[in-house]
């Protein structure tokens, strides 16, 4: 069966989540085609052609696909996707925005955020904030799927030599337009791809105190995350939120500081390899999932940890 993957990219390069999605496609098996839709996205298409396991790259370079508005890109995906057995995208905000729209245009269901491929039509996915794992089987002719990146090991970004084909078709639904974007700047690793994540919660008390976590994160080469409580309180921006409705992470080491461990937060980090919790409440639910728990005041423990590294 042939597989079409909608690439996550920024016109210049391919984002890491695409590599995990290619891994899921390899688990399904079949010829893999990557679609790069954007404006001035030639460099991203060249990068996609180098991904291990990719057979072909379709480059849809058109003003209508600038900023990858769902109204336009979904029409393109639905048009091209008719000829494929599977349409995949990473479960990023972009994939989640566009793919269900394309699925409905093709009159097929979507299976969201798969964590494993059991067979050609059967997949596992978490429901109820990750408290239940469902094994689901699709009866649709075209299987439209988003992939939870942390559940699949990324394939190599280099080593492939796919051909790049230009796609001429331009779809402009004409009912939406891009106004502006505010990108949160950070020199630290990307939260969803980092091997170490340090997260702060309500216990941090204010945004200034996050400086302690930034210092610790810099020593560990870590990304910094947050609980919903910390975001809602305005300590840090929302793109740092880890949880059921924020980002899903699964680093080698996750350090939760001043986070109680609500169901919704655990949904975003409990697949981390090693979890450390620093909390002064010894009954906090976070200790039930932590490999190493330290019952202590974070304002003493974090600086001490920082200076001992």
């Amino acid at each position: 069966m042939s597989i079409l993957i909608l690439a996550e990219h920024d016109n210049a390069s391919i984002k890491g989540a695409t590599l995990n999605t290619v891994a899921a496609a390899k688990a399904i098996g079949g010829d893999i085609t990557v679609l790069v839709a954007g404006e001035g996205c030639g460099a991203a298409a060249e990068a996609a052609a180098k991904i291990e396991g990719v057979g072909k790259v379709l480059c849809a370079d058109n003003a209508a696909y600038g900023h990858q508005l769902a109204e336009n890109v979904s029409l393109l995906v639905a048009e091209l996707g008719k000829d494929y057995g599977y349409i995949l995208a990473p479960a990023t905000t972009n994939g989640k925005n566009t793919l269900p729209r394309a699925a409905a245009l093709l009159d097929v269901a979507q299976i969201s955020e798969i964590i494993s491929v059991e067979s050609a039509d059967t997949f596992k996915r978490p429901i109820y904030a990750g408290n239940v794992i469902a094994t689901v089987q699709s009866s649709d002719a075209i299987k439209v799927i988003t992939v939870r990146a942390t559940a699949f090991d990324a394939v190599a970004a280099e080593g492939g030599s796919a051909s790049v084909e230009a796609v001429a078709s331009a779809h402009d639904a004409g009912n939406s337009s891009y106004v502006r974007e505010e990108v949160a700047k950070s020199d630290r690793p990307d939260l969803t791809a980092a091997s170490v994540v340090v997260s702060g919660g309500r216990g941090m008390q204010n945004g200034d105190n996050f400086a302690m976590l930034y210092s610790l994160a810099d020593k560990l080469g870590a990304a910094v995350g947050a609980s919903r409580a910390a975001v809602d309180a305005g300590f840090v921006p929302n793109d740092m939120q880890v949880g059921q409705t924020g980002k899903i992470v699964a680093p080698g080491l996750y350090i939760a500081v001043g986070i109680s461990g609500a169901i919704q937060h655990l949904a975003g980090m409990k697949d981390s390899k090693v979890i450390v919790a620093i909390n002064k409440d010894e009954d906090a639910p976070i200790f039930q999932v932590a490999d190493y728990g330290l019952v202590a005041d974070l304002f003493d423990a974090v600086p001490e940890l920082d200076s001992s590294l």
Partner: protein
Amino acid sequence: MKVLVAVKRVVDYNVKVRPKSDGTGVDLNNVKMAINPFCEIAIEEAVRLKEKGVVTEIVAVSIGAKVCQEQIRTALALGADRGILVETDVEVQPLAIAKLLKAVVEKEEPKMVILGKQAIDGDNNQTGQMLAALTGMSQGTFASEVVVEGDSVTVTREVDTGSQVVKLALPAVVTTDLRLNEPRYASLPNIMKAKKKPLDTMTPEDLGVDVTPRVTTLKVEPPAERQAGIKVADVAELVDKLKNEAKVI
């Protein structure tokens, strides 16, 4: 303008659900049910738009068993003007829900449809986008701010890298993110008044929609258990364990 708000009855977000031991489903006996938190935010946004004079009528719609009336009554108590229940005992999946909502949209002709970004039971995050596709409407997903100006709506969206602002022609579909607003509580007098507000009931057959599931759940199971951890006495022991036992730093 008229606004349609979709609400879903789900397990209360504080309940930790468990799969049944035979793996056939999730144990929902005697579990507290509520409006999906994102749907509450959707109702709140519609009510705020009405209070600003932008919206004239709010119609709350829910799809499911007869008991979903409770959630529609809650929406009415929060400020919706009337309710529609599409009653079915079949397990309706996002594509079928989107088709049913499309049929309701064709009857009601709202200028905007507001939904939650995802339901906390299925965690699908599909219905709003699918409804937008089927109706040909524009879509503003994961909204943290909604401003209606004339024939368009400007939506600030929460995206992976920060936030993005898009301008959409009306009619449009908007799905709510957590930070769009803080939902209000229903007051007792409003709960009493809500009992008198109109609530129509229809069926998928009335709307001419086939709701046969496309995806079959073969099995549900609990996630892999984590091995019990240990408590360390101090920072020195923590660093030692991370270096020498877990070997992660």
